[in-house]
């Protein structure tokens, strides 16, 4: 570690890589050599900084200059100005959208001000492919402490006291879960890391694995020590090639450093980790399905009990935790249960990472203390709604969660409050919607997802979700009846009540929560055949303004179904029974005479 060198941190998370951050690294490195400063400068690819909206991001350390939306062409200037001449490149600094003031240090940006980073502590700060950088940030110290100073019982006690709950969605107390596995007597036990992040719109696990893989390995080793397992398995989506690559590098480095393998730190504790690949099945986020998948079977969930803590992988006691949960553990061990418990609300301690996305100005990955309000997240951190539109709803918990509205904006976010409001924490997807989003369509979107992802094992989920989708489709087509609304609710309740696993037990939530929070929208679709958000194509009407139409007949010629009629040089008319709402006429009209009603 060359501590005195200037570090150039280039975000190399998936989002920034998609915006050519690899090329930025290449160009900066080249410019550094050309300027003959390569002895004093180190260019590092890091994990995600979180502020994806403004990516790619380049950060200079130690002066913490935070450059946004950098392009590969900017590399030369950054090196020549910032590194050689010591002058900041103003035009690449973040601009406060209100004051138009340029901000150099990220801690002064609204996006970061209210964040507390525990799970994401190292993401964007270290080179994830270099174990020494992790070690320099107190990495593997928690494992050392546990192995040399603490017993499994004490460690678990500490976790229980910290109040840490599972970050994968369920919110089960992590310490208690470990205790259950620890208590079972068995020759062989396993610990598993659930990295099968499948919630569409959530990518925190991926960011942690890409940005700080060792934090997960360290926590798994601690888990192994506490539960009595000597083998760990990481079940990761095959769709995450970068995270897989970095995990492989991290595992090999940890083995080289004696932090995985036999006789870790000379304490006699053995623990090693293997990677298993998912293959594209959302239901494998459910722990019994995940275990079946690791065993080479179809990822169908089993009925619990027995829980994996008794009978898991290969019928052996198995403890499954999610990536973010693991990432929280080393700091808890090092800083103590009281420190962790001091953050958050009464029953939900610590922080939660959210993937903030949708119609919000600052899309990105954020970590906030439990108890923060939705308003703070959406308007302070998220910078409010895009394009000056009006906030309508926020969806948390992905396909298992619900849509919350204006009236929920000031409730403190924690596991229990979200459930009480008809949604859930889930894995941390947070999708913001504005007035142009139709809530019925939104529910349909999620149902489309669950229909595709249902494993098919139990009847209510297999067929019920399909029927829910079809009912919603009927409603968005303007063909729904009031009776359909009754059916929709009854079916949603039965699917929730009778499904075998968490997928089906929660898949009706998007329907029920939108029905509860936006009943008028469902009624408008059904009674008036209107979609006020203007999203349901079938309910749209293209109408010709009589006074603006010149009768040029251009629209008549483009209409693929001959729905438009009228005399030349006279106002035209669209026959709504024939119109297929393709929009071709509106596109062609030179006089803005066609509008959507």
């Amino acid at each position, binding site marked *: 570690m060359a501590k005195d060198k200037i570090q150039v941190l280039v975000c190399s*998370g*998936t*989002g920034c*890589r*998609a*915006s050519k951050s690899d090329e930025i690294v290449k160009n900066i490195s080249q410019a550094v050599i050309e300027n003959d400063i390569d002895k004093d400068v180190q260019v590092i690819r890091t994990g995600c900084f979180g502020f*994806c*909206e*403004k*990516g790619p991001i380049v950060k200079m350390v130690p002066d913490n200059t935070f450059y946004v939306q950098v392009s590969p062409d900017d590399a030369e200037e950054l090196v020549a100005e910032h590194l050689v001449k010591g002058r900041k490149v103003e035009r690449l600094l973040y601009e406060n959208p209100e004051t138009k003031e340029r901000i150099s240090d990220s801690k002064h940006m609204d996006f970061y001000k209210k964040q507390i980073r525990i799970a994401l502590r190292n993401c964007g700060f270290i080179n994830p492919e270099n174990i020494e950088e992790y070690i320099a940030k107190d990495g593997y110290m928690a494992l050392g402490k546990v192995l040399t100073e603490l017993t499994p019982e004490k460690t678990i006690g500490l976790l229980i006291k910290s109040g840490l709950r599972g970050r994968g969605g369920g919110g089960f107390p992590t310490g208690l879960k470990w205790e259950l596995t620890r208590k079972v007597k068995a020759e062989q036990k396993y610990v598993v890391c659930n990295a099968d992040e*499948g*919630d*569409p*719109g*959530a*990518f925190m696990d*991926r*960011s942690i694995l890409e940005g700080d893989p060792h934090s997960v390995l360290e926590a798994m080793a601690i888990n192994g020590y506490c539960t009595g397992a000597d083998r760990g398995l990481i079940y990761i989506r*095959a*769709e*995450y090639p970068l995270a897989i690559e970095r995990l492989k590098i991290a595992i090999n480095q940890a083995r080289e450093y004696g932090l995985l393998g036999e006789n870790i730190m000379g304490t006699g504790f053995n623990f090693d980790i293997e990677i*298993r*690949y*998912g*293959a*594209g*099945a*959302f239901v494998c986020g459910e722990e019994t399905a995940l275990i079946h*998948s*690791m*065993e*080479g*079977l*179809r*990822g169908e969930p089993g009925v619990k009990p027995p829980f994996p803590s008794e009978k898991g992988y*290969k019928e052996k006691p198995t403890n499954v935790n999610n990536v973010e949960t693991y990432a929280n553990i080393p700091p808890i061990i090092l800083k103590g249960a009281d420190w962790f418990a001091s953050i958050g609300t009464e029953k939900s301690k610590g922080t939660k990472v959210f*993937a903030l*996305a*949708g*119609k919000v100005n600052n*899309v*990105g990955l954020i970590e906030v203390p439990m108890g923060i309000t939705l308003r703070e997240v959406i308007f302070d951190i998220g910078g409010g709604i895009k394009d000056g539109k009006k906030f309508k709803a926020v*969806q948390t918990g*992905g396909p298992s969660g619900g849509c919350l509205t204006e009236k929920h904006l000031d409730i403190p976010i924690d596991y229990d409050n979200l459930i009480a409001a008809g949604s859930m924490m889930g894995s941390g*997807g947070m*999708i913001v*919607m504005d007035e142009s*989003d139709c809530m019925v369509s*939104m529910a349909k*979107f*999620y149902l489309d*997802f669950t229909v*595709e992802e249902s*494993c098919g094992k139990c009847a209510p989920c297999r067929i019920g979700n399909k029927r829910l989708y079809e009912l919603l489709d009927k409603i968005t087509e303007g063909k729904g009846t009031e009776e359909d609304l009754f059916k929709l609710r009854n079916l949603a309740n039965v699917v929730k009540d009778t499904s075998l696993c968490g997928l089906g037990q929660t898949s009706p939530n998007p329907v029920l929560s939108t029905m509860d929070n936006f009943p008028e929208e469902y009624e408008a679709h059904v009674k008036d055949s209107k979609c006020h958000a203007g999203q349901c194509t079938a309910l749209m009407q293209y109408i010709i303004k009589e006074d603006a139409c010149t009768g040029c007949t251009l629209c008549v010629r483009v209409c693929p179904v001959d729905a438009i009629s009228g005399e030349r040089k006279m106002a035209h008319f669209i026959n709504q029974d024939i119109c297929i709402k393709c929009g071709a006429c509106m596109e062609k009209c030179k006089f803005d005479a066609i509008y959507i009603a």
Partner: protein
Amino acid sequence: MAHIKLAQNKVAELKEVCKKFNNDKGELINVLHAAQSLFGYLPAEVQEVVANELNVSIAHVHGVVSFYSFFTMIPKGKYPISICMGTACYVRGAEKVLNEFKKLLDIKVGETTPDGVFSLNSLRCVGACGLAPVVTVGEKVHGRVAVEDVKSIIEEYKNDKE
């Protein structure tokens, strides 16, 4: 089902892969991942080889292959196009982008163009929500794709063919 003949050296390689996993049926999914990267897809014949090597029934292998969306029995195009249908991309118009691809390529999701150049798929969240809506072509990620951009994306790769 059309029958195909597998190349001998590739079959030998596949058997080698199975051996590397100790011919353990618990490693089926890992083996299938390797097989798919070897053959590009998983035709029935490949699944039969895997079934024989791991000593499981062909029905079991097909049951697993057909369960997971990552595995495919249809050869992918030279340029596999995937449209992210994650929520963030959806609310920023991914569905319209997908429809445009369907229209211009004249194929459905899961299909490959007759000339084998493009195949079309939807996927759930690539984790680049800041760039929504996102389209990936092979390894390359295209961010903030508008319906109007679809034509030029297709042209870009079509021209690349020559």
